[in-house]
């Protein structure tokens, strides 16, 4: 036991001394490796946290939303529709929703107008924190919009929505129903869509299917579909980042391959020497494995810790542009870390296994040559 540890330490001694000989090269490799882990880990941590955040925030989203379609496009829900829907078995608490978009040419941003319950009093609005920030507004301020009828309408800001909700509320303008209908010239009795819940949530899909049969011009969006949309949406964005990273990955692969498989004549010679002075093939492989562990694990841990700091303490500054796109009212939000052991393990395997294999296989081939070859060189 003690001899075993002593042996591993001796091999590790040699490995460290050996790595220190080509300091610049190995530090460079370590840096590239760590950078790669950093980027991959940043994306993984960020998207997982965002996905979790979406799931948590949208957990209470309406169970089923019903849209009316006309010629394949989203249309207003006409009066009477709500009552027809209410008669379908299992459908509960039908509510007409009113919401829409308004483009503000001042800051060239889209606002989401919405009627909520409870709503601000007539003539007043509650605005999202990002909007308030960009327009420099606070509670008590006034905001004017050009209505769909053409005249300018001023609203008093009754409240700014609390900052912690910004991820969901950045661009919201909450108005009363009366103001909403007047401002957008929205036909009386019509709604944007209908939200309802189902007596037995297990049967939401069945009810939705029945509903589409009874109301052929309707489309139902289930809560689970919404949540899934977010999960896959971030997958897709993550894929975009990964696609950009593919080049880096490839470059790293080439680097690792070159470093590893192209065992230099010098390294081959060294392996021969070690073999001739009494090292077993296993000792040489163990030594190289230590090298891989040192490089990979150091790079992995460095990259991961840096990524964690970047995403959860640095606001994910490097990834924001990807997600932000052209958004003007991009929300400021803090993410709640979700660390998944499997993610980390995958990342570790993704970076370490190919490298170690790329080092070990040629080393093994070189190390299984006869030890007398060194005498004949």
């Amino acid at each position: 036991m003690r001899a075993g540890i002593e042996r591993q330490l001796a091999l590790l001694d040699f490995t460290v001394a050996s790595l220190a000989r080509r300091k610049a090269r190995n530090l460079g490799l370590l840096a590239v490796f760590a950078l790669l882990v950093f980027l991959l880990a940043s994306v993984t941590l960020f998207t997982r946290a965002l996905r979790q955040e979406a799931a948590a925030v949208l957990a209470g989203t309406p169970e089923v939303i019903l849209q009316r379609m006309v010629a394949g496009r989203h249309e207003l829900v006409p009066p009477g529709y709500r009552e027809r829907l209410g008669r379908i078995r299992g459908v509960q608490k039908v509510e007409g929703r009113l919401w829409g978009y308004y483009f503000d040419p001042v800051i060239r941003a889209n606002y989401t107008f919405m009627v909520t319950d409870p709503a601000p009093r007539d003539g007043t609005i509650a605005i999202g924190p990002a909007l308030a920030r960009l327009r420099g507004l606070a509670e008590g301020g006034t905001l004017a919009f050009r209505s769909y009828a053409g005249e300018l309408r001023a609203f008093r800001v009754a409240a700014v929505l609390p900052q912690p909700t910004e991820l969901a509320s950045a661009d919201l303008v909450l108005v009363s129903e009366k103001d909403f209908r007047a401002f957008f010239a929205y036909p009386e009795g019509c709604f944007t869509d209908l939200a309802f819940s189902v007596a037995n949530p297990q049967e939401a899909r069945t009810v939705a299917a029945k509903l589409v049969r009874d109301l052929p011009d309707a489309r139902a969006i289930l809560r689970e579909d919404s949540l899934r949309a977010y999960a896959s949406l971030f997958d897709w964005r993550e894929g975009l980042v990964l696609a950009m990273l593919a080049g880096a990955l490839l470059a790293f692969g080439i680097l690792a391959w070159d470093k590893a498989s192209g065992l230099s004549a010098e390294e081959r010679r060294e392996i021969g020497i070690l073999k001739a002075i009494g090292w077993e093939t296993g000792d040489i492989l163990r030594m190289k494995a230590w090298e891989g562990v040192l490089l990979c694990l150091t790079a992995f841990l460095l990259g991961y810790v840096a990524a964690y700091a970047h995403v959860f303490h640095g606001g994910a500054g490097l990834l924001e542009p990807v997600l932000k796109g052209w958004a003007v009212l991009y929300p400021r939000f803090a993410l709640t870390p979700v660390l998944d052991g499997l993610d980390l393990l995958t990342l570790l395997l993704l970076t370490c296994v190919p490298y170690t294999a790329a080092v070990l296989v040629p080393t093994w081939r070189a190390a299984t040559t006869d030890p007398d070859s060194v005498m004949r060189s």
Partner: protein
Amino acid sequence: MSPRPAPRALLALGALALLAGLTFLDAARIRRSRRAEQAATARFAAQAGLTDLALFNEARYTRHPTQADRHSAFQDHPQAFDHFPTGSLLPPRSHARRD
């Protein structure tokens, strides 16, 4: 002679591992401290009947991805980043572009 390198290397590796372990503690701390905020946001979203995060507000057709039609996810913006490859084949109309 310089001190033995192996224990120092292991020590450095151990320190890094410890740091990585600390991120889990830090994560738990942040989770605890943000629990109330997250719950408040969720309450607000449920009460207002929000269906989407305010992440993609660059255009109205990206604002509520869950509400978009299945066959025209990001509907008809001239520079929309499409699900389907058509968008990369057909350039936006010139009058719709604004620099």
